[in-house]
């Protein structure tokens, strides 16, 4: 599979320097593939390392971070090794990113026009007039009414949902080969969400590979083809999207599904996973999920973590999971 992969990440490990303590391992040996024209969902709790994984690949980590191991092959090159200058050429042109909050991606002091045309002009993709035309079209595409007028406004003059759409327009305008979307639709309502997902799906149909970090399992089901579940900096389950949701195998995946609320499910009891994700400076030994796992068996779960192949394209980091015959 990795031959035809658009992006192939292997054994990524990223640490953060800390004052007076051992570095903190935020991402601990993560591997996954993104295929051309397909979407990979990355799901998992806060702090499980999803954003750090993506920021490592994109080379936009804070200064205190260090990638200590791993590869990220993209177009025959290892993004982790090519250096900042080369990476900057890739970013915004071949790989675009949509963030959790538009505030992270947008400059509050610049008009939408300046921000939407920036990559097109910086990478020399087209001239100013053409860039403006594409920017207006992109704004219209993401459902911003009156794009000709709106392009002259500043981000703070838009509602949260509109700002999010403007940021997506910003990422789509260069037609990137890979789009990394970190919670792209959390700030928008369901109708706009559907509209944005359908737009992103068009990009996907044209061959763009998408990594979608999402907390919304409904969005994941609708949009994504494959899924990776992360916990405490590690991948705990990897599966085709539908299989994961209809038949989760890793106890953590089972817990995630039990926490999801759905319309029509008002009377169903919530079954949140007890406790919270581990403080990574005290990552539990063995399977890091064991302090919260209803199926944990000591001492084995507290000393080792083993990954079992469940079936084609499916594995889980738990020695107790059911494996397909």
């Amino acid at each position, binding site marked *: 599979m990795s031959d035809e992969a658009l992006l192939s990440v292997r054994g990524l490990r990223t640490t953060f320097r800390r004052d007076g303590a051992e570095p903190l391992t935020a991402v601990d040996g993560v591997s996954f593939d993104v295929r051309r024209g397909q979407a990979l969902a990355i799901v998992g709790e*806060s702090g499980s390392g999803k954003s750090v994984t993506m920021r490592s690949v994109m080379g936009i980590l804070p200064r205190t971070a260090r990638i200590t191991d791993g590869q990220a092959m993209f177009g025959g090159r290892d993004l982790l090794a090519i250096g900042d200058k080369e990476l900057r050429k890739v970013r915004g042109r071949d790989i675009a990113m949509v963030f959790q909050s538009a505030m992270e991606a947008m400059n509050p002091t610049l008009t939408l026009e300046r921000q939407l045309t920036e990559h097109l002009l910086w990478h020399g993709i087209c001239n100013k007039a053409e860039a403006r035309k594409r920017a207006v079209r992109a704004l219209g595409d993401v459902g911003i009414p009156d794009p000709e007028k709106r392009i002259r406004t500043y981000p703070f003059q838009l509602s949260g949902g509109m700002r999010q759409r403007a940021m997506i327009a910003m990422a789509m305008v260069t037609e990137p080969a890979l789009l990394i979307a970190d919670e792209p639709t959390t700030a928008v309502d369901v109708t706009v969400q559907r509209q944005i997902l359908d737009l992103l799906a068009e990009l996907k149909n044209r061959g763009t590979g998408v990594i979608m970090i999402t907390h919304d399992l*409904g969005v994941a089901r609708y949009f994504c083809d494959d899924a990776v579940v992360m916990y405490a900096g590690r991948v705990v389950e990897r599966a085709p999207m539908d299989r994961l949701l209809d038949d989760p195998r890793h106890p953590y995946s089972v817990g995630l599904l039990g926490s*999801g609320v759905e*319309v029509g499910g*008002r009377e169903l009891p919530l079954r949140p*996973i007890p406790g919270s994700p581990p403080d990574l400076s005290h990552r539990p030994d063995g399977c890091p999920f064991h302090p919260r796992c209803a199926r944990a068996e000591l001492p084995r779960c507290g000393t080792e973590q083993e990954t079992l192949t469940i079936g084609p394209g499916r594995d889980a980091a738990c020695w107790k999971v059911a494996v397909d015959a």
Partner: protein
Amino acid sequence: MPDKLVHAESVTKVFRTRAGEVRAVDDVSLTVHRGETLGLVGESGSGKSTMARLMMGLQTPTSGRVEFDGQDLSKLPARELRLLRPRMQMVFQNPYGSLLPHFSAIGNVMEPLRLHERGDKESRRTKALELLDLVGINTGHAELYPRQFSGGQQQRIAIARALALEPDLLVCDEPTSSLDVSIQAQILELFTDLRDRLGLSFLFISHNLAVVERLADRVAVMNKGRVVEEGSTEDLFRAPQDDYTRQLLSAVLPIRQAPGL
């Protein structure tokens, strides 16, 4: 004591921008009763957050009026408004943005108490620790800074901070949408618990209809600055009357093959 805690009467809010006038809220009347959770849903840009700010007296309506506990906010002298302010608190989508980055977790919870001159330093500390415990933050971590907590934990701290002044009304603007599902489930349980234990009233804004269905007693649907439908949660979800509400409900993406199983 009036049964209406906050009541907006025909409020309209017009913003002037380079792109022209924006009628963010257009002749809306809305009430949150005491002890009630009112869900507010609708398209982005439909005016929900503006409505919330108007109801909290953080912005003045272009026309119409807002009453809190029977008092017209626009007619209140600044001093009395300041006394009312602590009784309505807000929880935002982005917990990090609503916390003071250079204050520890406990410092964040103590700050509103200090600003409003409640108790002495020692009692403020005790109270803040109780609140952190109430929202499920390990009190051993009270001295850590916001950035050292995960998003879900930051939201818990933001909630503890909002509860510090013992408000009657908690206005939550997308409080769980930056959180993943397992933490969201815990925060939902926390809200339910707070409502039952403290008798809080909520104005709860969310685009997550499943969350609103679960928490709200009544739901109002906004579209283009207007409330297009309002009703009990059960009725509205079972038999939506308005076209836009129906459209909204049909756009929900199910997680399981047969939702509700």
